[in-house]
């Protein structure tokens, strides 16, 4: 059995099913992100693991032991909250030491462990300060130290970086990941930021409307999204509505509003593609090349061109609608706005994703 196991977790608030049959197995030392838009049930799931919310149905196991009905103060978990929730009337040292006091760790040992953990988050010199005297990033580190010092079985991070500036957030992502690798604590991160989830986790668990949609390593989830929601939520995608024209062993032909286009057969099809089935023909913006009109699959006019330093973003009006293209900055000035341009891509870069009839 895996180290942390969620088994059919459900949470109902009145008529609203916030979490719908979530099952997840997490290995010891693994870093898993619960990723989804706000209201998808990810925070509720985390709070059920922490014991702050009682599940309507389902079970939670840590290390083979069921803790579904265990009180939160009896679970050996470390939690970092979005608001940090530091104790404002205690110094940094006292904040970190609190969990050890509750575990009756004696003075000398306690001091040693607090100092070690503060060193781990690079706050060794701040032990005597109060939370109000620290920056957001430093408060975040105190919260992390406070959760780690008790050597929790599982570390739960509830949108821990969302209150920080973009620059500090990126630094903290790298640092948090490094600290997690050092201490090896099994970690669950809740976030709505797909870049954060991909940067930090071994696996991302994408949630939507209370359900777990896909659980995969970031690269797999990005390259082989299970459905159109994941495809749209993880990065950007150009999705053309169409229906399956024909399926052979080598390729799928998709009929869109104006033409028939080919795609590779999906690696893992959620449902076998049948002729006539409504699908999206989906291509990532960075997989599309700008080429001359003659050799193109699709042509269009450059509507807008945005320079972002290391890459360009183009908005191109085509017969299938607006297409987003991202290309590397190669040091040459890119095509001008208004220019007519051809678009090309490899059939194996296309994902055929199932679509609701009216989508």
């Amino acid at each position: 059995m895996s180290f942390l196991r969620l088994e059919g977790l459900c949470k109902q608030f009145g008529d609203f099913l916030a979490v719908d049959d979530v099952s997840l197995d997490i290995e010891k030392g693994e870093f898993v992100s619960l990723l989804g838009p706000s209201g998808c049930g990810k925070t509720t799931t985390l709070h059920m693991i922490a014991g702050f919310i009682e599940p309507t149905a389902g079970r939670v196991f840590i290390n083979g032991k069921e803790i579904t009905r265990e009180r939160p103060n009896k679970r050996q978990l470390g939690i970092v909250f979005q608001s940090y929730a530091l104790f404002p009337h205690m110094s940094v040292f006292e904040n970190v030491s609190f969990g050890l006091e509750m575990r009756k760790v004696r003075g000398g040992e306690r001091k040693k462990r607090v100092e070690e953990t503060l060193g781990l988050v690079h706050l060794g010199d701040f032990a005597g300060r109060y939370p109000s005297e620290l920056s957001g990033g430093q408060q975040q580190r105190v919260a992390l130290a406070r959760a780690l010092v008790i050597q929790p079985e599982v570390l739960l991070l509830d949108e821990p970086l969302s209150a920080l500036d973009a620059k500090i957030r990126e630094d903290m992502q790298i640092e948090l990941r490094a600290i997690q690798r050092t201490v090896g604590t099994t970690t669950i991160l809740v976030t709505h930021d797909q870049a954060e989830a991909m940067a930090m986790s071994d696996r991302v668990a994408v949630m939507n409307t209370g359900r777990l949609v896909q659980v995969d390593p970031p690269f797999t989830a990005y390259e082989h999204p299970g459905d159109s929601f994941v495809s749209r939520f993880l990065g950007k995608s150009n999705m053309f509505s169409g229906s399956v024209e024909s399926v052979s062993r080598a390729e799928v032909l998709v009929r869109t509003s104006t033409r028939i286009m080919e795609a590779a057969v999906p690696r893992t099809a959620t449902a076998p593609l049948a002729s006539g089935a409504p699908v999206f023909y989906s291509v990532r913006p960075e997989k599309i090349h700008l080429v001359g009109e003659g050799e193109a699959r699709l042509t269009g006019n450059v509507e807008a061109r945005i320079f972002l330093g290391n890459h360009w973003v183009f908005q191109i009006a085509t017969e299938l609608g607006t297409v987003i293209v991202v290309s590397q900055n190669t040091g040459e000035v890119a095509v001008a706005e208004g220019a007519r341009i051809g678009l090309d891509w490899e059939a194996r870069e296309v994902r055929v994703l199932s679509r609701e009839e009216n989508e």
Partner: protein
Amino acid sequence: MSAPGSHAVSTRPYLLNAPALGLFLALFVAPLLMTFLLSFNTFDMNRGGILDEYSWVNYLEVLGDSYFHEIFLRTLLISLAVTLLCVLLGTPEAYILHRMASPWKSICMLVILGPLLISVVVRTLGWAILIGSNGVINHALIGMGLVDQPIKLMFTNTGMVIALVHVLIPFMVLSVWASLQKLDPRVESAGLSLGATPFVVLRRIVLPQIMPGVLSGSLIVFALTASAFATPSILGGRRLKVVATAAYDEYLGTLNWPLGAAIAMLLLIANVVIIVSYNKYIERRYAQVFK
């Protein structure tokens, strides 16, 4: 008109403040000053009442007379008792209210604040009906056979304290409630996740953070009890005087206005000294929370 705004800008705040300031000066500072001056006048019934002679004689009389010592001591003890009871009852009350779910929260808040909507005299007369020898409580107790004689609550310190706690506890609840609003609800969860029991969370994490509310609440309650008039005069009667009723009696009973003024000034000074030193002490003790 080279700099049209400069002059107007510098005086405008004062002009805008003037009506409020005028009201404050006329209705608060002036009477207070006049009372202060009045407290130094001498008084002689035989020579026509208040004389234009100034001395410390009123203060010496109050400070030297054991009759007044008793009144001041009683006022202090009642104030301390009422403040303590309001802290012990009001703080948990506010916390429970804070944790309540939506519709009940507002309903209970209204129940707690309800007494503030009724005149203090009416509320006190209500207590007189309840605790009198022929009152509801004694009738009930005797009827149930729990006591033979009516319990004496009317015209006792206990009766006064009970009624004053009822009158003043909303201030305590409101004050603690306000500081609970500033509490990050997640700190309690954080405490629990670190292995603290709910009681330890309350004592070590919640209570220190709501101390400013408890402090300001107890200051309000103490000051209002020390200067309370209606409740002590109705429930304490003529015999159990407190400072406010004693001053009232000097003014309207013996017509010795200067002595009444001296009593009022001494109450004011005592109140200010106690409140300021208590405030200083608590602020030092909980320095971090007040930041």
